């Protein structure tokens, strides 16, 4: 012991502590993953359109003008033409982004709330609790998801709130499964054991110590889930079970355009494109985030 007292080294600190998120690092990540860049840009544009819809739109989305019905694109100052009531299609699509994103974000938030909590509990406690919860998840998963949502909306009645509720209640199973799988791995980590030895309660360990460590897969699945929710909303609206007119919804506009598909195919084409591009954006973003978090794991 005496011997070591003479030579005492200060151990080096590898890096300086960083306080704020590094802007350069974020830009670097963006340039590294093209799908995050492209997906992010699409998502950004859609969100921008939704927020600033009144500024971007060229007309009033609810203003009917029978004289101008079924105009072709670029006719009479209508960028994408008009629908059967003479409403400007471009404006309707811009306003439709609001509905799609609102349904997407809130229903995914609801699914997250249910799924993450249930997944955390199932994974952490294990045993018969896990058994019962996961069998219940299996039962929910055995239904065709969209049919279940249709049944729910049919029971509750159409309308934006019920669509959100139905999608939230139907899609939580994915999150529950993924969170449970992460928790199973994380709860065996030594820092969880260490948290126990300093006297943390189960609640604290689950939400303070485990949850932040399984955020990466949650973010990926939630981003992909936004795309799924938007398609589901469009499908429900297409079937007349979702958003009720005159509110602008991509699915409903697409469905209505079907009646005139021989004369004015673009009436269905443009809302369809809007749905496709938005979902593509979320999927690219989700995939990109997954790749980035995965490669981080590999680097370790």
């Amino acid at each position, binding site marked *: 012991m005496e011997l070591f007292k003479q030579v005492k080294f200060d151990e080096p*600190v590898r890096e300086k502590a960083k306080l704020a998120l590094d802007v350069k690092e974020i830009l670097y990540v963006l340039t590294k993953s093209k799908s995050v860049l492209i997906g992010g840009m699409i998502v950004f544009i859609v969100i921008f359109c939704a927020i600033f819809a009144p500024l971007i739109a060229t007309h009033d989305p609810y203003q009917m003008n029978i004289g101008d019905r079924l105009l072709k694109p670029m006719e009479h100052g209508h960028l994408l033409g008009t629908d059967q009531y003479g409403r400007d299609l471009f404006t309707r699509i811009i306003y439709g982004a609001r509905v799609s994103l609102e349904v997407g974000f809130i229903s995914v938030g609801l699914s997250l709330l249910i799924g993450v909590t249930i997944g955390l509990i199932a994974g952490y406690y294990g*045993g018969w609790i896990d058994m019962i919860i996961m069998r219940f998840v299996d039962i929910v998963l055995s239904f065709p998801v969209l049919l279940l949502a249709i049944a729910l909306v049919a029971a509750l009645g159409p309308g934006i709130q019920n669509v959100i509720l139905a999608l939230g209640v139907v899609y939580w199973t994915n999150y529950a499964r993924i969170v449970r799988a992460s928790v199973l791995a994380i709860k065996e980590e030594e*820092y969880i054991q260490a948290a126990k030895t300093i*006297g943390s309660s189960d609640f604290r360990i689950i939400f303070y110590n485990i949850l932040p460590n399984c955020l990466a897969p949650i973010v990926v699945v939630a981003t992909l889930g936004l795309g799924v929710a938007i398609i589901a909303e469009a499908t429900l609206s297409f079937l007349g079970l979702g958003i009720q007119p005159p509110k602008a919804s991509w699915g409903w506009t697409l469905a209505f355009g079907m009646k005139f598909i021989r004369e004015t195919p673009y009436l269905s084409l443009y809302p369809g494109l809007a749905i496709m591009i938005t979902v593509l954006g979320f999927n690219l973003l989700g995939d990109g985030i997954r790749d980035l978090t995965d490669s981080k794991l590999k680097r370790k």
Partner: protein
Amino acid sequence: MQQNMLEVSNLTTTFTSRKSTFNAVDGISFHVEKGETLGIVGESGCGKSVTSLSIMGLVKPPGKVSGKHIRFDGDGIDLLHLDQKEMRKLRGNEIAMIFQEPMTSLNPVYRIGNQIGETLKIHKKIKGIEQKDKVVELLKLVGIPRPDEIFYSYPHQLSGGMRQRVMIAMAMACDPKLIIADEPTTALDVTIQAQILELIKELQEQKGMSMILITHDLGVVSEVCDRVLVMYAGKIVESGPVKQILQNPQHPYTKGLLASLPRKGESHKRLSYIPGQVPAPKNWPKGCRFSDRCPYVMDQCYVSLPPLFPISEDQHAACWLVKEEGREADVKHETVR
């Protein structure tokens, strides 16, 4: 007479699987005096870590802890019969633990300062600026340079030795009465090992804490511990003051451990070793558990398990040889399990 900080009596930790039941720790009794450092030595899989987890009440199901009592801090508290809520109040506050692997025992998503502050928040309800001051003070205490900066670091930015210092700061946060250090230096470089040991020893003396040091390194034991328990296959095979054990080991296993330490100036010699390995619990021999590796094995060893025979006032060894040599005759025989 000095009071004992910890008194463990007949501690048994049983694991049940679908096929079999075995005792990872099998009826061990020991005590830790106030301000004393007790070493627990043994090979991997001999039940050292399970012993410490049993004391903390953190054995995971299907593990089950039983025994007569685990008395903590005098006569007041019996850890065996506390419920989880009362145990939580003790953990981190009165009994703290330091782990083997500093690389993985810090939560990667939180800053160092917040992690140390966690203990203070849970037990002392200290928050905000006051908490930060206290944490910086703790960082200084464990010899971390530039504590104000390290406060905001993440675990991955620190080296192993620094992280172990952080773990020690976490353990010290509430001035515990007993520290259980589970191989605190095993994962570190040799030079850092000495520093960390010295730090632990210093803090222990300064705060008057008791300590259980679990290790497989007899060198560490000789430097830090007052008394030592040698464990083999879930049993204590020898116990006593460090000096006596190192100079006059009685159990063949302890002798084997000592003989397998490398020595200065004997570079041309081959290291000696104990042949074989610790048997898995389901293969434990009926008699002495060391019998299949023991060079001095006798017929009796295969038949019955030797109890701890006193050698001197405070040294004990569980070996029939000790009894054969007639040092002690009036020991109660333990029945064969």
